[in-house]
C-alpha cells in the first residue's frame, strides 16, 4: 500500500460564529517541545478583537434574554460534544506535552466543569436574588443580571481546562465573551471553538482569539464597549495594566491568580456572580 499523507488542520479564529483567519494576515509558528510538529497559529490583532467585541455586543441581547433553561441545556450540550470528541483533545493535549494520564484528567475535569455550570445556569438566580423587606408600601426585590460583554484572558499554563473554567461561568450568567487563549498551549482551545459551534451556542456568544498576550492585553482591558475583564495570571505588571485600563469606563476587573484549575474546587457560583450586576426594583403595593 502506498503511504497516505494526512490532512493537517488549519487553526483559525472564532468570531461571531465563523472561523476567519486573522485580518492582519500574521501568524505565530507554534512547535511542540519534541520538535516533531509545527502549526501556524493566527496572530490575532487589535482589529480582530474589535470585530469580536462587535459580535459579542450584538449577541448579548439574544443570549442574555434567552431562558435560563435554554442556557443550561446549551452548556450541557457543550459538555456532551466535548465528551464525544475526547480523542481529538487527547491528541492535542499530548502534543502540547501532557502525559496521557494528565490529559485524561484534564478532559474529564473540563467536561465535568461544563456540566457543573450547566446546572448553575438556572439556579444561581435563586441563590443571589432577594425580596427586601423595605419599611415602605413597596414590593422590593433584587436579582442578578449579566454585566454585558466580557473580555477574558485565559490562563497561559493550561489549555482546555483553563479556558473552560473561565468561559463557562461567564456565559452561564448570560454574558457574551471574547477570550484570548493560552499562548503556550493554543491547540485545543481552537478545537474547543469547533465544539462550541456544534453545541447550539449562538454565534458571537463566545469569541476565541489566539495571539500575543503582550500585544493584546492593552486592547482587551481598554475597549470602551467591554463591561468586565477577567484576567488569569500573576504577572504584577499585567495585573496593574488591566486594573488601570479598567478605569477608563469603570470596567469590572476580575483577577484569578495562582489557581489550580484542575482542582475539583476551582469552581463555585460566586465566579458567576463576578460578572453579574444586581438590579433592584421597587414595585408599588396598592393604588
Amino acid at each position, binding site marked *: 500500500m502506498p503511504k497516505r499523507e494526512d490532512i493537517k488542520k488549519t487553526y483559525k479564529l472564532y468570531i461571531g460564529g465563523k472561523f476567519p483567519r486573522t485580518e492582519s494576515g500574521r501568524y505565530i509558528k507554534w512547535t511542540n517541545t519534541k520538535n516533531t510538529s509545527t502549526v501556524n497559529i493566527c496572530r490575532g490583532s487589535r482589529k480582530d478583537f474589535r470585530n469580536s467585541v462587535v459580535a459579542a455586543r450584538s449577541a448579548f441581547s439574544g443570549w442574555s434574554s434567552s431562558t435560563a433553561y435554554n442556557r443550561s441545556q446549551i452548556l450541557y450540550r457543550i459538555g456532551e460534544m466535548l465528551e464525544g470528541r475526547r480523542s481529538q483533545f487527547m491528541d492535542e493535549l499530548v502534543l502540547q506535552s501532557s502525559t496521557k494520564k494528565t490529559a485524561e484528567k484534564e478532559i474529564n475535569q473540563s467536561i465535568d466543569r461544563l456540566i457543573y455550570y450547566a446546572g448553575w445556569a438556572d439556579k444561581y438566580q435563586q441563590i443571589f436574588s*432577594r425580596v427586601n*423587606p423595605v*419599611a*415602605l408600601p413597596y414590593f422590593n426585590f433584587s436579582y442578578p443580571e449579566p454585566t454585558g460583554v466580557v473580555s477574558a484572558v485565559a490562563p497561559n499554563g493550561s489549555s482546555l481546562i483553563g479556558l473552560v473554567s473561565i468561559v463557562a461561568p461567564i456565559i452561564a450568567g448570560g454574558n457574551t465573551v471574547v477570550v484570548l487563549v493560552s499562548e503556550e498551549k493554543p491547540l485545543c482551545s481552537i478545537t474547543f471553538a469547533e465544539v462550541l459551534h456544534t453545541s447550539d451556542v449562538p454565534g458571537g456568544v463566545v469569541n476565541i482569539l489566539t495571539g500575543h498576550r503582550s500585544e493584546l492585553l492593552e486592547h482587551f482591558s481598554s475597549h470602551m464597549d467591554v463591561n468586565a475583564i477577567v484576567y488569569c495570571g500573576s504577572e504584577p505588571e499585567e495585573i496593574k495594566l488591566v486594573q488601570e485600563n479598567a478605569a477608563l469606563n469603570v470596567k469590572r476587573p476580575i483577577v484569578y491568580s495562582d489557581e489550580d484549575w484542575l482542582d475539583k474546587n476551582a469552581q*463555585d457560583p460566586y465566579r458567576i456572580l463576578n460578572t453579574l*450586576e*444586581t438590579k433592584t426594583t421597587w414595585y408599588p403595593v396598592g393604588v
Partner: protein
Amino acid sequence: MKKDWSYSPAPESTDHIHIAVKNDLFINGKFIPPEKGKYFETINPANEEKLADVAEADKADVDKAVKAARKAYEKVWSKMDPAERGKYIYRIARLIQERAREFSVIETMDGGKPIRESRDIDIPLVSAHFFYYAGWADKLEYAFPGKKAKPIGVAGQIIPWNFPLLMAAWKIAPALATGNTVILKPAETTPLTAMKLAEIIQEADLPPGVVNIINGDGKTGRALVEHPDVNKIAFTGSTDVGKLIMKSIAGTDKKYTLELGGKAANIIFEDAAIDQAVEGIIDGIFFNQGHVCCAGSRLFVQESVAETVVSKLKDRMESLIVGNPLDKNTDIGAINSKMQLDKIKMYVDIGKNEGGSIHQSSCKLPEKGYWYAPTLFTDVSQSHRIVQEEIFGPVLAIQTFRTVDEVITKANNIPYGLSGGVWTDKGAKIFQVSKAIRAGVLWANTFNKFDPTSPFGGYKESGMGREGGLEGLMPYVHLV
C-alpha cells in the same frame, strides 16, 4: 383686599443646637488637633455665615488614623464575638434616634437641604441603616452559602456632601458589622453631622480606633486612598474621581466599591396616572435640590401626553417653595456650595447655547446664600450635553418618545446606569421596561425611595458594588 395664600414662616428652632466652634479630628476615640494645626471654615450655604472651624487632616494625620484603625482591627474588633459587635452598632442606631432632631437641624444648616427632608428622610434612614446592619454581625454564615465571610481589615471611606450623615451610615454600618474598622472622610462642605456622629461613637463606648473621622478636601482623600495599610476603599462621588481612584490603586491588593454619577431616565407612558407621575417627576429631579446621583434628570414622556405633562409640570414647579431650608414648609433649599452653583449655571448656559428651550419657576430667590430656581429644558435631544452629563442640580431635560423600544434605546444610550423610573398603569409594561433598562435601581410609579434593606448601586460608569441589603455586606468581606 388682596388675598395672600402663601404660608406663614414656620422655622425649626435652632436654640437647642450646639455646634462646637472648633472641630478636631476624631482618631483613636479622642478628639485631637491636626499635626499642622490647620483648620478650614464650614458655612451655612443658605446665608453664607460661618458655622464652625474644622480640622484639616494631612498625610501625617491620615497615617495616625490608619494606625489607630489597624490596631483596633487586629487587637479588638476582628476578634470580638460578633454578637457583641452587633450590640455596639445597635447602640449607635438608638443614640441617633434619641438625638434625631439635633442631627436634622445641623444637617440642614451645614448642607442647605430642607429640614423636612433631613428630618423625615436622611436622619431616620441613618438610624435604620445602623439598626439593619447591627443584626447581620452574628449572622454572616447565613449570608453566603458555601463560603465563610472574613473581614477585610481597615476601610477608608470617602463620602459626598449631598446626604452627609446618610452616606456615613451607608459606609460605616456594614463595615463594622462585618468586623472591619474604618476611617471616614466626610465632604469638606458638610463635615458637621459626622463630627456629631463621632460624639455618639464615643458615647456608645466603641473601642478606640474602630471608627475614626477625619476632615479635609481631595488631598486628604487622596492620602487615605494611597495609604499602603488601607485594605479597602469605599467611595461615593463623581465618576471622574472614581476613575482616578481605580487608577491610583491599580496593582495593589486593595478592594474597592464605587458609587458614582448618574443620569437617570424617568419614563412616563401615556397610560400612567398623570398627576401622580408629575409628582414623581418633581420628586425625581427636585428632591434635595437635584443633588442626588440617582436623580431623574432625563425625563422621557410619551408623545401623546407630552403637552399635558409639561404643562402640569410647569404649574407644579410654580408652587414649589424655595427658600429658608430650616422652614418646615420649604420644598427646595439652598445649593450646597458656590462651586456647585457655578457648575449648575455653567450647564444651564450650555443648554441654552445648544438650542434648548428653558423654563424656570418664577419664585423669588433669597439675596444671600446659594440658590437656583427649579428649571426644565425642552427641545433637547440625545446628543445635548445637558442630556448626557450629570449636572447635580435642579435642572430637568425633557424628551419625548413614541414606542417602548425607542425609549429603552434612548434611556440606555448613556455611559451611566444607576437608576431609572417607569410610570404606567400596566404591570407587564413595568417589568418589560425595568428589565430592559441597564441600571441598578428601578422605581415603578415612584422615584427616589431608599431603604437599608434595599441594595443600591450602578451598572456601567455609575460604579461597582452595592450598598444596602445583603448585597451591601459583600464589599466588606473576603469569601473563603
